[in-house]
């Protein structure tokens, strides 16, 4: 009985996991790497936005003085702009899959 049930389970699992393998053609490694680069940049962008928000909040709470805040805020925004432009570059050169 166990053997029969095991055979049924194996066949069911095999049919389920084989679905993607029947697909013709796979995404190119270069496209996968480009997508990963894009995700890295997106993650950096969101982290940078959070950093800007935190700095604004810290400034509003009086933890950072005006001069430091202006300098830090300008640095963070410049870094954010760098990330945004890198994102634009990445999106414009994204290889087709």
């Amino acid at each position, binding site marked *: *009985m*166990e*053997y029969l*049930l*095991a055979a*049924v*389970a*194996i066949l069911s*699992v095999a049919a*389920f*996991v*084989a*679905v*993607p*393998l029947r*697909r013709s053609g*796979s*995404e*190119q*490694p270069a496209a*996968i*790497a480009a*997508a*990963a680069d894009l*995700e*890295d940049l*997106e*993650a*950096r*962008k*969101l*982290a940078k*936005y*959070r*950093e*800007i*928000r*935190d*700095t604004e*909040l*810290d400034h*509003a*709470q*009086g*933890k*950072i*003085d005006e001069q*430091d805040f202006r300098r*830090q805020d300008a640095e963070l*925004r410049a870094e*954010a*702009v760098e990330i*945004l*432009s890198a994102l634009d570059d990445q999106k414009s050169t994204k290889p087709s899959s």
Partner: protein
Amino acid sequence: MNAVGAAALFVAFLTAIYVVVSALLGTRGDSRWADSSRRAVYALCALLLIAVLSLELAFLRDDFSLALVAQNSSTTTPTWPYKLTAMWGSQAGSLLLWATVLSIAASAVLAMTRGHHREVVPWATAVMGGIAVFFTGLIAAGIAFPGAETWPFAALSPVPVEGQGLNPLLRHPLMAIHPPMLYAGYVFFTIPFAFAIGALITRRLDASWIRSTRRFALIAWVLLTIGLALGARWSYSELGWGGYWAWDPVENAALMPWLTGTAFLHSIMVQERRGMLRTWNVSLIVLTFALSLLGTFLVRSGILQSIHAFGESKVGPPLLILIATILIGSTLLIVSRLGDLRSERRIDSLASRESFFLVNNFLLVALAAVVFWGTFFPLISEALSGEESSLAAPWFNRFTTPIGIALLFVAGIGPLLAWRRVSLAGIRRSLMIPTAAAALAGLLAWLLGDAGGEPLALVLFVVAGFTIASVSQELIRGAAARRSLTGDPLLLSLGRLVARNRRRYGGYVVHAGIAVMFIGIAASSSFQTSEDLRLEPGQEARVADYTVRYVEPTESIDSAQQSLTFGAVIEVWRDGEPESMILAPSREYFSVNSQSDGAAPLRSFFEGEATSEIGRQEGLTTDVWTAIQPDLSSLDLVMTKVDRQFAQRIEQIEPGDVEAMRQLATDQGEAIARFAQFYVLNSPAANIRFNVNPFIFWLWAGIGIAVLGALLALWPGSGARRREVVSDIYAARLARELASSPG
């Protein structure tokens, strides 16, 4: 149904192997194999759930043809919760639980990262699959090696008519959920570990792997926190020694990954924000996962003496090999990637949040190292000197208390600081209120609680006051800053501030909870009143400002559980309070007769497991706690005489004389009932432990607050849509600035 479960479990092992193979093929760039491996993980999860379900059905149906059911349940075991939770009281069941929770967590993370991290995910899947192969393989090995007792569907022949029942120590509602919480906590650390390995192999070592797995690390932390708290609560209310933490090896085993996991949750924020601590973060998650496996090893190997000794088994060596493989392999991988793990930046100033995160990490890891040394000292000492000696609670307390105080102080300072650097005027302004609150807390503890004689407790109150005030100030200042921008009322501003910054303020709430917990620990351990009394019924004694009176003994018999309970009614008055409190501690003795020949029906109750039921009155400021240890020496003669009579009677019964056996059982039942009544009539003296634990309620409340804070940090925002809107706003602003900037 058992056949279905057995077949599903065996195919799960084969599927886990397929997960590894297909994921490794997927790492070569063919996304079809990666997709196939993801589907295989879903299939693995379904198969393991089928196996668990069929095993649970076997417990519900009292199917004693399975050895697992016969050894851990009986027809009289209550269905809820014990029949349903008896599965993980056994080794085979707990291994199945490990594999099943892993497959659930792996399915969740793969569903969440579908279409993302396509370089890292196949490697991470292979690692998760490898761990699943280990655990399902260990389970399946039980088919070939029945002595290992890892195969949960092992059949028993001949089939007994009754099972042995659940280990009495596990017959407590908290014990039904404490083990799966700890195990799930351990298992969820697999996810960030697997992604860290994937990120190392593919050299994708920025913060994106952290972003995808941070929630799983936080879930693991919440589960471990709840598991540890439930264990402590069980120890407090069931073990009869009056404490909640005994530095038991298995308790320590769960504490170590909790400590390093806490460090990881802090240090990943530094990597996300500042691109620093990359080597540290991957090392920390490897260590946390290895310690999680070590926790499983300590529970299951029985290598160290522990109240959890019911876990002794033969799976220790394979677990140790797995831990060694993970540590060595991960270390080699980290060393080979040191160039890619270099930090993007350096710390700007010592007066910054990131530098205090470093201090926090150092303290947490130091604490874990102390606990590790204390836990494994018996093994180390045996290896070096041939003599086993262990380190007791005072040794642990000597090192952990100062580190704990320093950690609490850092938890209070951290929220006051900004990232990068904070101005001197800012620090001064931020410190004023928390410092005043700390001084006030110290003064109150000195005046009201006589804390002068307990300097460490006094310092703890001061630092806890500082931390709670620091967190409160952060919340109020943040709300005030938001109100000045939006014009909303303060409470609404506070709500919106927290909702918009769940992670930040959830973390602060955790800090406040930990501070409250420390107040409970400091007060209950430093100002506890404890007295061991020996009283006869009707006698009373004075303990501090309490009068304790042993009113009368009690007895009860639970034939379903085959247990005999001797207890006491105790009346307690506190000076100056109009009403007394009635407490009813007891000791429950579980018979071992079902496993013997039934020749000693009375003594069999006192040769097996016994549990304490605590008589307790909980309050916000004091917890009056009593446990009883009946003095049975005066019953010894009666017990011996009655048991001898039954032993002689059994010798005279002809084999197969069913009627005589039935009569014997009836007479034994009557003898047990008369013996219980004799205890009450004879009214022997009892040893009563009477404790007054101040502020212990705040220990549990603090843990509850910390868990709520972590859940707040975990709670998802209103989704990607809002994040995108915010992002777009910033993008537009940044774009405008870019356009207007020169050059």
